[in-house]
């Protein structure tokens, strides 16, 4: 079990740990405990969402028609692909393939930026249509088929809160992945000697993907509660 055989391990092993196994296990468990907090963090918002949506099903359906499910779908595919790239980047890190890792991390970053660009397009569209809640909330009434605009505002409140927080997580992800990529680029031992730091960033990024997996159908693909009308998307 000992890693004493690796000569340069001391640079990577922190002084509080006995060996690399202990350190790596601690890192992985630590990351998961962090993700537990993230789950609860978003869980509260999903709870609020579910309560209000159950209450205002019809108004929210009308409000959700303002969202473009195609753009959301592109972003879903985008995040899925970046998640895949991240997973293979971890694999390349296990193989100590520096070039492979860098290539894939660059791909992940590109996807993340793409995600934010699409998000920006969506947000600015909402803003132009005065759909941002608050004093400037003045939507074109004809789009809402008589729905209660208060509830529409509530919908957009949660929409901006939840996708916004997710967006912040994507931003943090970009920073972290960028930092990781830089370390790989410079060939720092802390990342090249052991794949676990890359794995940790990967775990975070997959979690960001998971949040979107729920956000997408909940916000963009609502079924129509009204009788007899067709599917969820118009």
């Amino acid at each position: 079990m000992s890693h004493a055989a690796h000569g340069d391990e001391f640079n990577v092993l922190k002084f509080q740990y006995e060996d690399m196994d202990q350190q790596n296990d601690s890192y992985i468990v630590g990351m998961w405990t962090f993700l537990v907090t993230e789950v609860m963090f978003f869980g509260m918002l999903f709870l609020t969402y579910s309560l209000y949506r159950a209450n205002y099903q019809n108004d929210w359906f009308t409000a959700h028609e303002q969202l473009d499910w195609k753009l959301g779908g592109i972003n879903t595919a985008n995040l899925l692909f970046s998640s895949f790239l991240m997973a293979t980047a971890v694999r390349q890190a296990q193989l100590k393939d520096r070039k492979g890792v860098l290539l894939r991390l660059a791909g992940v970053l590109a996807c993340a930026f793409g995600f934010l660009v699409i998000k920006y397009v969506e947000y600015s569209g909402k803003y132009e249509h005065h759909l941002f809640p608050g004093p400037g909330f003045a939507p074109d009434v004809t789009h809402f088929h008589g729905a209660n605009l208060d509830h529409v505002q509530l919908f957009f409140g949660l929409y901006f809160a939840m996708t916004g927080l997710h967006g912040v997580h994507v931003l943090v992800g970009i920073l972290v992945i960028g930092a990781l990529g830089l370390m790989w680029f410079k060939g720092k031992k802390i990342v090249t000697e052991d794949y676990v730091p890359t794995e940790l960033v990967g775990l975070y990024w997959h979690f960001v993907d998971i949040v979107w997996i729920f956000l997408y159908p909940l916000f963009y693909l609502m079924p129509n509660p009204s009788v007899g009308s067709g599917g969820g998307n118009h």
Partner: protein
Amino acid sequence: MNWNLFNYPMNPPSASNFAAEHDALFYAIVGQALFFGLLTFALIIIFAFKYKKGSKADRSSPVYENARMEFWWVLVPTILGLATFFWSTKLFVDMRTPPKDAKEIFVVGKQWMWHVQHPNGVRENNTLHVPVDTDIKITMISQDVIHAFYIPAFRVQFMTVPGRYTQMWFRPTQVGKYHLFCNMYCGTQHSEMGGSVIVMSKRDYADWLMQHGQVRENLTAAQTGEKMFNKIGCGNCHGAQDLIPRGPTLRGLFGTTRETGDGRKWIADESYIRESIMRPTEKVTKGYGVTMPSYDKTFSEEDIMNLVAYIKSGANQSLPTSSIAASIPGIQARDASGKAGLNSNAMQFNSDTADATPTRRGNAPAVGAMASEKGDQQ
């Protein structure tokens, strides 16, 4: 030393039907707490000194784990806890289920006063007059932040929440004057949002309603509601019969089962009516279209309570042709003669609020609470 300082009661007055049982429960738990508390603390002190280092106590065969003993430690508090739980829950369910024929009083909480409206339309601020030995149901709502309507002597308390009616009930048993508090922190003058509850004999209460009504205004809640009903022109769509296709009649509406277009059914209770005024698009009665505008932002909670009272009062009568006499004896007679009051200033209630506008002030304790309390001395 001035022992008069301590010449104060150690428990609140008991003036409602709940007080006796509540106090019994309270003292039962006090008994449990005293028993276990004293026993345990005495043991701690006894052990601390008996087994003090160097004492000659017997220390042979010390015990480190004793499953049987610990089993009892788990079982006894569990059983006692469950017994207390069942008792308190029984009491609580009583407190939460108002009797059907209870007299309903409306309360609106706002920063920082209580508006009270009696069923015959008499209004008061920060005081609540109630007849003794009568079931009273309080239907409450808040106009701004969350408040709590708290009468310690009755052992009742419930929060008023904006956007939703809450209810509580009690039956006063002792004539007298008791504290009324707001018990949910609601802003700067939270501590002065309150006044008193005055429990009167039934006869005095009827008299008070008469006098008070003459001084203030002689419209019942339902009558004020009726006036508003006519003024807005609700009857244009909600006619006396289902002749006009725009809206169903409200005659005999209250308490019936309404069916919406999709086949779901609702009991037309206070909440249903309030919701229909505030958000008319939500539960459209079968056979009608969505034509009614929302009055969400146009009515104050008092207005809506009046409208609800009017529609409610027409449960067995025709609308909107007659004004409804209140159910309190002694008032009915006056109602007949006081019909002219229908034309009196309907802004009365709102002008009440104007003079209660909370203003920044110094330390002098002279806000609405005390002022109205003094004014309403029996």
